[in-house]
């Protein structure tokens, strides 16, 4: 038994060492701390953390802990997945998996070790968030700091999210069909459904009790707690405006009951199912069940679709001739864009389908349905443009081509933009006649998506950050249609000139940031 624990402990320790020695871990913790700074607004700005019937809830320990913990749960249930969803893959790519497979360690020990490794990393992110919230409390709080209140609320609300992300990431990785980009995108929709379901349960006050077990984020108990204590349904959590004339109210704290604890405990069923799935599907690095490198990975769903559609790639290659007589960078941009289509024939099919839909569908369906669907398709299509050359060890080969080494980020951005415009050009042209401002939004949005794919891909050296952030932004944009600042591609036709300028600036910053980071890396190598 001792030996079993020692083996599991070794896996956990190695995972922790590996992750915390990466710059990305430090950056993540700093970003979390920075996010908490913005989540807890200064009340003198007219915004507050929790607003009940227009009244501000006092910043006591319970209120600050509850609201920041909810954001932490929300964050870790989504981003947490992307932060840890490379546990098995890392061992496959490094071929360490073969050594582990030949060692006297059981599948259960390995999967459990990886699960705890994931969990502890996300737990560290939670602690960083909680400590930052306490610091913010010391700066902006009203009352005495009660660390145990923070700890109790964070543990109850956030830990189910951590367990869910940790287990689901392993389950998705273990199942070849979901182990790639399709899994990454699918997880976002699973998360969105889990977010929407509790909200509808609270709104309709109906539905079977067991559905509460899907409320990983703790939305239902939080809302019910506030409703019970303040006898109202008009409330908001998160930086929102309040009526400064009306006196603030006190949130007395969480009423710890067996019902609340039972409800939170019931949410552990999903992580348990995920963990059992991961253990059941775990391939033990058997080469007949996995492919040992990125280059040969054909078992996931997207790769299978692309293999089936390979004849379509010949169609896209017919366009190679267009670049032949141009200057070398333009030529390279075109070649890379054609390569994207050739690598993923499903993208070509999607472009044709969206083009037809964009021509014939009515304007409201175009904005509310087709353009969001295009953004999802773009997230899948563009995600690996910035990282695929490095994964395939192609960088040095590419750098022998004229201008590419010095202008790598620009080249990739332009190539991603060409692919993006293949999707959006027809909708843009149509919207120029219907609603020129929305056409401009879509054009700006096209640059923003292409810039994000390359900028975040180069900065994070992974496609996951781009997928997570852009899908989350899309989710927010579609669920907050009245907030013009989120309308990055014209979904709600509310974007102003300021919004256009803002997203253009963000695009420039992303590409510039990536260029600087890339230049530093090249100089070091």
């Amino acid at each position: 038994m001792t030996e079993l624990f020692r083996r599991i402990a070794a896996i956990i320790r190695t995972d922790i060492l590996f992750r915390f020695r990466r710059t990305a871990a430090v950056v993540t913790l700093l970003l979390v701390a920075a996010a908490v700074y913005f989540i807890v607004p200064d009340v003198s700005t007219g915004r507050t953390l929790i607003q009940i019937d227009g009244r501000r809830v006092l910043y006591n320990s319970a209120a600050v802990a509850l609201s920041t913990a909810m954001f932490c749960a929300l964050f870790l249930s989504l981003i947490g997945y992307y932060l840890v969803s490379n546990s098995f893959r890392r061992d496959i790519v490094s071929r360490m998996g073969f050594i582990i497979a030949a060692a006297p360690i059981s599948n259960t020990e390995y999967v459990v070790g990886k699960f705890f490794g994931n969990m502890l990393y996300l737990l560290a992110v939670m602690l960083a968030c909680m400590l930052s919230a306490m610091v913010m409390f010391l700066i902006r709080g009203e009352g005495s700091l009660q660390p145990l209140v923070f700890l109790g609320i964070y543990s109850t609300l956030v830990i189910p999210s951590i367990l869910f992300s940790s287990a689901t990431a392993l389950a998705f990785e273990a199942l070849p069909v979901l182990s790639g980009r399709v899994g990454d995108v699918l997880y976002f929709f699973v998360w969105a459904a889990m977010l929407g379901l509790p909200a509808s349960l609270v709104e309709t006050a109906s539905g079977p009790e067991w559905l509460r077990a899907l409320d990983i984020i703790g939305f239902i108990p939080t809302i019910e707690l506030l409703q019970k204590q303040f006898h109202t349904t008009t409330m908001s959590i998160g930086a929102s405006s309040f009526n400064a004339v009306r006196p603030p109210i006190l949130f007395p704290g969480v009423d710890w009951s067996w019902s609340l604890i039972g409800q939170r405990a019931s949410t552990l069923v999903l992580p348990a199912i995920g963990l059992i799935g991961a253990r059941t599907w775990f391939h033990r690095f058997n080469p007949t069940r996995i492919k040992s490198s990125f280059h040969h990975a054909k078992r996931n769903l997207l790769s299978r679709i692309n293999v089936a559609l390979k004849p379509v790639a010949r169609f896209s290659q017919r366009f190679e001739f267009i670049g032949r007589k141009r200057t070398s960078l333009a030529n390279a941009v075109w070649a890379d864009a054609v390569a994207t289509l050739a690598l993923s024939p499903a993208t070509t099919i999607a472009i044709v389908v969206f083009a037809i839909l964009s021509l014939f569908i009515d304007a409201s369906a175009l904005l509310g349905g087709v353009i969001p669907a295009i953004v999802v398709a773009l997230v899948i299509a563009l995600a690996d443009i910035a990282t695929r050359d490095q994964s395939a060890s192609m960088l040095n080969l590419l750098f022998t081509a004229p201008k590419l080494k010095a202008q790598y980020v620009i080249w990739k951005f332009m190539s991603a933009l060409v692919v993006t415009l293949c999707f959006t050009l027809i909708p843009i042209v149509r919207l120029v006649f219907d609603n020129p401002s929305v056409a401009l939004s879509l054009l700006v949005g096209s640059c923003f998506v292409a810039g994000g794919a390359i900028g975040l891909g180069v900065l994070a050296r992974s496609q996951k950050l781009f997928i997570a952030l852009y899908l989350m932004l899309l989710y927010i944009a579609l669920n907050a249609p009245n907030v013009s600042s989120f309308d990055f591609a014209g979904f709600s036709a509310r974007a102003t000139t300021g919004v256009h300028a803002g997203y253009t600036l963000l695009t420039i910053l992303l590409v510039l940031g990536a260029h600087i980071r890339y230049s530093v890396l090249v100089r070091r190598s």
Partner: protein
Amino acid sequence: MLEIHNVTKRFSNGVVAVADFSLKLEKGVLGLLGPNGAGKTTLMQMIATITVPTSGTILYREQDIVRSPDGIRRQLGYLPQDFGVYDNLTAAEFLSYIGALKGVHDRKKVMELLELVNLHTEANRLAGTFSGGMRQRLGIAQALINDPDIVIVDEPTAGLDPEERVRFRNILSDIGVGKLVILSTHIVSDVEAVATHIAVMNQGRLVASASPEQLLRSAQGNVWEAIVPSDRFDDMRMKYKTSRAVRRPDGVHVRIVHRERPVADASPVEPDLEEAFIFAVNSHGKS
């Protein structure tokens, strides 16, 4: 020690990687030779319990390794092809990790192994900063951490410079005493230096199994040397398996592996191991 009986591995796409392979192995260094795609890696992965045979059995000390893999896993050291490391771990941390997975928790053992592979001065350096040769040496150290009875190394010298290759061969030679070391490669000189027994694979099948001396003997009388005019050399190369060719003023001095005298003025010469290997691979199924 290790018995392989009629092992076949067929992939889901119908490709047969290993076909009806049988071999009995005892202590010593087995050089597993074969051209690329011969099935060496798949065979080694089956012995290492990473994948299972489609049919046939592999017995370790008379125990079926498919039914009870942990028996061999406790006594196994494995260095896969293109071995990578966790780049953020130091050499000592990396070895401690693999040791823990194999039930070894002795810090002294870690340092001893680092010394064996001449990495003791780099124990606290991140493995990600190691050269290819240093990584391979770290790889062999991790394969030895549990003092295994069987050591499997798959193409360990690929990509190493000549000096590192010699150093690596010496390590393998040292550890081969009292253990079964299976060294898979297509570089004949690696095997020549250390192997006590050689198995040659081609297209998934075992085409020869013998000591290096026997393998050399089997090729005797089948290797020829001739001087051919430069303009006839290309034709000659297309027609026969040439093991070596040197351009000189009087023509191309060529060594040919063939059962019969290829040209009238060719004279028989003593084969080397590379030629014996070429002979074994090419004579299989033709005799």
